[in-house]
């Protein structure tokens, strides 16, 4: 059951990611990115991280991607032409070498990984709102407050940059 969900989510994630890169219409690419983010939320669910899955949908797919879509729709860019320049010989060779290195590293990581059964089963409280909240406000309290300060600074900076007259 989990395996079939994993396969469906994987197909969705990879196909949407490829659409993002390869499609010539930018708005379709942005929508496809939103679909990719929702499938990542599905992966979080499979890993028992329920709170993180919901936050991924609310924040990433529901707010950030909508913002990106706004900008794209307002800009109304022309579609990319399909005829990109063919890669030169150095670029092609380097591309092949780097792709081979990437495949080798991923293969080593996947096949040399620890057996899933060696990890302890997550407790039923894993990934719940209560446990995440406890960790955030107790163990990583300073990091949490520092990040919220960073967000406030970013917001103030954005407003400052965007306003013509204060």
């Amino acid at each position, binding site marked *: 059951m989990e395996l079939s969900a994993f396969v469906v989510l994987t197909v969705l994630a990879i196909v949407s990611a490829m659409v993002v890169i390869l499609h010539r219409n930018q708005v379709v690419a942005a929508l496809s990115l939103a679909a990719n983010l929702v499938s990542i939320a599905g992966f979080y669910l499979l890993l028992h991280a329920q*709170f993180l899955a919901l936050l991924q949908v609310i924040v990433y797919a529901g707010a950030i991607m909508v913002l990106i879509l706004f900008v794209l729709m307002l800009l109304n860019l022309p579609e990319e032409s399909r005829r990109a320049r063919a890669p030169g010989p150095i670029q092609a060779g380097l591309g092949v070498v780097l792709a081979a290195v990437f495949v080798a590293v991923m293969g080593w990581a996947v096949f040399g990984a620890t057996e899933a059964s060696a990890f302890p089963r997550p407790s039923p409280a894993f990934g719940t709102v209560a446990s995440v909240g406890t960790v955030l406000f107790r163990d990583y309290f300073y990091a949490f407050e520092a990040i919220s300060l960073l967000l406030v600074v970013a917001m103030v900076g954005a407003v400052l940059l965007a306003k013509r007259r204060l």
Partner: protein
Amino acid sequence: MDWELLAITCIEIVVIVNVLLVGVSVMTWIERRLSGVMQFRWGPNRVGPLGLFQPLADGIKFLMKEDMIPQEAYKPIFILAPALAMITSVTAFSIVPYGPTVEIFGRTVDLVILDMDGGILFGLAATSLGVYGIVCAGWASRSKYSLMGGLRSSAQMVSYELALGLSVIGVILAAGTLRPVAIVEQQAGWFWNWNVLAGGWQLLGFLIFLIAGYAETNRLPFDLPEAESELVAGYHTEYSAMKFSMFFMAEYIAMITASSLLVTLFLGGWQLPFPPEVVGLEPGWLLWSLQILSFVAKVGFFMVLYVWVRWTLPRFRYDQLMNLGWKRLFPLALLNVVVTGLLVAFDVI
């Protein structure tokens, strides 16, 4: 793999989707007749007694109309948009507990489709994704009215989601849990134990959620994105027949969902206004039916309120709308969170 639970959930989904769609058609009748009453004219009164078959006639009309797709429209997204709107609206209803825990054929059934730990966040996630239906419709129609309507509507929805979420935080603080099932169970007893009154002191939160709910569903006084005098019909200008009807249904289902969430969080959900022991009601199908009926009645009241407000208040201009959302509701909602937090910290709630 609990096949029984899966089967029960599937049956619940089928029942709820049908109830929602029937609710939509009932709502169209209520809207048209009530609008007529408020405007001192007859509503539809030809089709059947009191015009009660009007929704049926509307449905047949929508099925048989010609389905036009503009030549310039971006077809895949154009066709996807109404589906997205419907899917997200119906999905948001899945966390609402519409009844207590009942016993059917010896098996205890929770009358809620989804009871996960994140609870109310799932509903917020589904409404966040609802913006995409409008964004897609506005852009894929390749028409200026549609694009402006789509952009305005999605900006409005995103802005009021903030106030909506913050007003929910007040309830979560008062209840100590995110699960709507637990929130409703905590509001048992007399009606002053509901969250809007002495149960959680969330009157401000209730008002903010109500107003933000009107903005989320693009209903008057926040319906500038689809007002006729402004933008023809906004993001669904270029849609005809069944696709338009899907947007229409999605909007009404969103209204039902918003009202249901309001009732669940602030007005005690399916709880009766009095403890059932006072009238000697034992847990059994009589009590459970009354509780489900109480839920339906409360949601029905807020649906009628939607129509009532529609013909009472004038429409907001778009800048007034955004001003209200960001400069008034958002700080008020933050104030609500702070006050509720203080009340919880000093053990008042």
